[in-house]
């Protein structure tokens, strides 16, 4: 099967390094603009909620962060899988970069969720909420991946072993998600799902979606930023890196 040229270029570290170097700043600008617009809209312009009053405004960050954290795991698993099957080191680099970003976003989702839960549910943490449980398990999946990576001295082994874990994990993530939802459906009690609104008013929907775009762009920005450092680290002893650093003040 003849692969297009850009496919091969995407496996070339110097090419991706330079491409990321050009694209990342723009993504950064887009991210900041979207965050500013969405944040202002959500915090200032959008009207208070009928039920939750002002505190619902966490709606403009919490679900977005949670969604991106799951996306980060999927990106990580796909990249690791590609790296494992086709032996593309750069793909492993993407996975290694996505992992800490995803882990921090997952932790952030849990924190913002807890801060939202206290004034609305009365408690910071409710074990029986399916989203909390899902997200907590996702955090452990990220931490397990990072721990496994760190345990190997040989980077190549670390890449491939953790790739297997990531792929098994990504198969398990939907299973975990639905099993937890099923588990919770048996506890019909007071735990109302956060997004259990019959409909979301358009004045809230627009900033909500802007923030979805903002955090997605943010993840891509952070990924490309982190990938550059990862590439330099991995390619430290190659000629093109030598030439790169020789061009700067030594």
């Amino acid at each position, binding site marked *: 099967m003849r692969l297009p040229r850009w496919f091969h270029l995407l496996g070339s570290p110097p090419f991706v390094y330079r491409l990321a170097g050009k694209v990342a700043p723009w993504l950064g600008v887009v991210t900041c603009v979207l965050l500013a617009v969405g944040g202002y809209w959500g915090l200032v312009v959008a009207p208070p909620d009928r039920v939750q009053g002002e505190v619902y405004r966490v709606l403009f960050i919490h679900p977005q962060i949670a969604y991106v954290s799951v996306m980060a795991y999927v990106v990580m698993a796909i990249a690791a899988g590609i790296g494992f099957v086709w032996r593309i080191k750069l793909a492993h680099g993407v996975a290694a970069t996505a992992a800490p970003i995803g882990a921090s976003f997952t932790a952030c989702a849990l924190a913002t969720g807890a801060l939202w839960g206290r004034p609305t549910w009365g408690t910071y943490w409710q074990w029986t909420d399916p989203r909390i449980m899902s997200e907590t398990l996702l955090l452990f999946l990220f931490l397990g991946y990072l721990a496994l990576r760190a*345990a190997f001295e040989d980077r190549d082994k670390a890449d491939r*072993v953790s790739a297997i*874990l990531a792929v*098994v994990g990504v198969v398990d993530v939907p299973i975990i998600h639905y099993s937890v939802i099923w588990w919770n459906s048996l506890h019909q009690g007071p735990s109302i799902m956060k997004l259990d609104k019959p409909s979301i008013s358009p004045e809230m929907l627009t900033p909500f979606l802007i923030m979805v775009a903002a955090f997605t762009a943010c993840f891509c920005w952070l990924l490309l930023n982190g990938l550059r450092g990862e590439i330099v680290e991995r390619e430290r002893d190659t000629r093109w890196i030598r030439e790169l650093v020789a061009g700067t003040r030594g």
Partner: protein
Amino acid sequence: MAPFSTIVLRDVRIAFRRLSEAANPLLFFMVVTTLFPLALSPSADELREVGTGVLWVSTLLSSLLALEGLFRSDADDGSLEQLMLSPVPLGITVLAKIAAHWLLTILPLIALVPILALSYEMPAAVLPTMVGALLLATPTLSVLVALGAALTVGLRRGGAIVGLLVLPLTAPLLIFGTRATEFGLHDEPAAGPLYLLAALAALSLALGPVAIAAALRVGVE
């Protein structure tokens, strides 16, 4: 099927030679299930309520204990490489080792569960459902434990992180298994979660050995 049963019998025989080691998971199981009432000081009703969860979690934790015997001891003395070089497909070898792990580690636990369940004031009527759920859930558990062992086989102190790697993946087993048991406890039909457990077992037994074989190849090279 001959290579399969050969490997299973080999592992069983090796385990019987070091019987005290093979009994570790069972002893751990008994100790842990003893610690909970000690820590909780529960009334009879409270005991019954926590019994399901305690026994299931203890099963999960105890199954981690036989990790060393799965792959590491074979890797240490070179027999794992021999097995990998043999004409038997690595997936079959892996399945055989999982079967041996299940027979040696899990089956004794499940045999002990009825007695412990009764000690936790659980009615005898729940036992068929509970044991059934355990029988359906534990093959997947063995697969996941084997995966953890294979991923860390190249590491000197891999045992430390295996819990972190494997236990989150077992969450669905825990959920469906305990819910099935609870249904049995309240005389409700438990078919739903039991079928789901069976589906997970089929999925993991079919796909697990592939991942485990891949992990072994990376770890042993």
